[in-house]
């Protein structure tokens, strides 16, 4: 098993190197000289241009530039934003908790609704409930989530006035220094009355929007996995022993049905982070997704490069961890592989 772990980790390394290579090449493919692009129409004196090029290492051969870039990344240096002049890693670290909080709440929403819906649909196969769950799941799976977000804002915020339209916090009424970067925790720590409630109300709509596709995927997966398990012999035995249906489904079937569901949940990280780009743009949520889109419109290529490197790196790492956990949990794979 240890050898499997090592092999799996080793297989991830080339992906990281290739990722560095792709982000490096991509940014150099952007037409135009990065310095001239920055100076704009004012122009720049040739000797100053040469000096800046030397400072940024742009006068070196490309392979040296790549080694320099890769070396920087390995030491946690993802470059400096052209616009804000702060290190990318620093900007990312400030914004990432907002994305993480949103992704976490979206996933909780998807799991809490998706697993019970899938289980009940499987147990009551062919019923109206089953058909409704599958129809809703199909719609959720096909949903353009940016439109779904606008609809929810239109109905819940504008029409019913239940939830705020955008942002993470009601900054007019509450202010506190970020401690953890997670608004739910910080608002509790701040001891300001109502702050936690405000944080929750800001999270509701974005979580629903971000959780919609994972919800559909989890509900479908739970249903089909549950249907498979329910036809197994040991479930029939449990029923024949006279155990209550709740015990059979909840204790015997669900445990085994959840194994593939857990994998699917783990593999949703990429979906969640990609979905965060859209969700954060709609709700003006100050996370890394919105920051990435803004860095494109500001032509902040180091930020784009570093941001994509960091987001993809996190997804690769999480997928690796899910894989390893899966093997650790599921003995059948452990011994087979």
């Amino acid at each position, binding site marked *: 098993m240890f050898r499997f772990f090592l092999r799996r980790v080793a297989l991830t390394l*080339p*992906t990281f190197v*290739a*990722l560095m290579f*792709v*982000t490096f090449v*991509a*940014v150099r*493919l*952007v*037409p135009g000289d990065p310095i001239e692009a920055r100076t704009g129409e004012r122009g720049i004196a040739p000797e100053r241009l040469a000096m800046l090029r030397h400072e940024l290492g742009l006068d070196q051969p490309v392979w040296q530039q790549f080694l320099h870039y890769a070396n920087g990344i390995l030491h946690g240096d993802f470059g400096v934003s052209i616009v804000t002049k702060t290190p990318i890693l620093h900007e990312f670290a400030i914004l990432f908790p907002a994305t993480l909080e949103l992704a976490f709440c979206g996933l909780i929403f998807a799991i809490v609704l998706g697993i019970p819906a899938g289980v009940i649909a499987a147990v009551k196969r062919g019923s109206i409930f089953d058909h409704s769950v599958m129809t809703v799941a*199909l*719609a959720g*799976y*096909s*949903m*353009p989530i*940016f*439109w*779904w977000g*606008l*609809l929810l*804002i*239109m109905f819940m915020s*504008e029409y019913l006035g239940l939830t705020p339209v955008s942002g993470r916090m009601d900054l007019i009424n509450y202010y506190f220094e970020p401690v953890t970067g997670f608004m739910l925790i910080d608002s509790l720590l701040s001891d300001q009355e109502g702050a936690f409630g405000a944080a929750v109300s800001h999270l509701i709509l974005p979580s629903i929007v971000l959780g919609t596709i994972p919800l559909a995927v989890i509900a479908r997966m739970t249903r*089909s996995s549950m*249907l*498979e398990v329910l036809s197994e012999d040991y479930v029939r035995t449990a029923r024949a022993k006279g155990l209550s249906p709740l015990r059979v489904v909840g204790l015997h079937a669900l445990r085994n049905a959840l194994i593939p569901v857990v994998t699917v949940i783990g593999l949703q990280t*990429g*979906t969640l*982070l*990609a*979905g965060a*780009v*859209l969700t954060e*743009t709609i709700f003006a949520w100050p996370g890394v997704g919105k920051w*990435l*889109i803004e860095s*494109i*419109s500001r032509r902040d*290529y180091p930020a*784009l490069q570093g941001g*994509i490197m960091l*987001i*993809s790196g996190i*997804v*690769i790492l999480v*997928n690796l961890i899910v894989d390893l956990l899966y093997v650790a949990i599921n003995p059948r794979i452990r011994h087979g592989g």
Partner: protein
Amino acid sequence: MADDPVLNAASVPSPASSPATSPASSPADALIETVPPEISPLRAFWSAFSENRGAVLGLAVVVFITLLAIFAPLLALHSPIEQFREHVLLPPVWAGGIWSFPFGTDAVGRDVLSRLIYGARISLGIGLSVMLVSVAVGIVLGLASAFLRGIVEVVVMRVMDLVVAIPSLVLAILVVAVLGPSLTNTIVAVTVVYLPRYVRLVRAAAMAELSKEYVVAAQVAGVGKLRLMFVTVLPNCLAPLIVQAALGISDAILEAAALGFLGLGAQPPTPEWGAMLADSREFIRSAPWIVTLPGLAILVTVVAINLMGDGLRDALDPKLRRS
């Protein structure tokens, strides 16, 4: 293809070697022995497909939207980019609008219905182009890595692993940021994102076929490598590929609309559904129809294609059938 001498010779041992192969998934076999002669494969496929009512409904909607797209110039009441300045933000007919603009007008007085109809052209066009390019490239790369193995396979599959590792929208954003936002670059970006599915699928299907006896028989008969790849093996890998291609169209439409919404796809005044939604954001309060209708168009199209794709899967590939 039934009178292909190689396939005829090759299919003799195949019933024994591949009892699990469905009639529809290996057309050569189907024609020769499994299906009774009076039922054509197309008939057999249709009877399996039409069992699924959702799939038939999906197909009907897809046909309807396709017709809208083809005949857009005849059906649309106005040009999608003509601005009627005297009719700005006109509500739809059912909310007190006028019949010459049935779905109302947008912030610069363009007819929403005409833009939606022309938008069908763009969305279906993107979906189909992405699908065709990625199927073609996927077949070549997938077959090459299954047949040639070695360094070709390692390089192709590692590159695909990398593409899969980057979240789809983030990768599409990177491609568009490099190439610049436009409709063509949207197609390129979405194709890059969805290519690995096809490559992996074709490679896996081809490798499964390679060990079967009809392939060995064809090799013994002296069939060349290219013929073996494209004529002997490929037709037997088509069923899962067709299913994936159908479902891939809807994913491509969604992804392209997301790019359009972010301002990285089709540029104004192109009547692309995602871009229309992006323009509508300021009018959530005052003109809800501009927000509602383009999204509804995307949702209906994507749901219809997914329903159709599920039906295709059940009909073509019983092994993948959902329980």
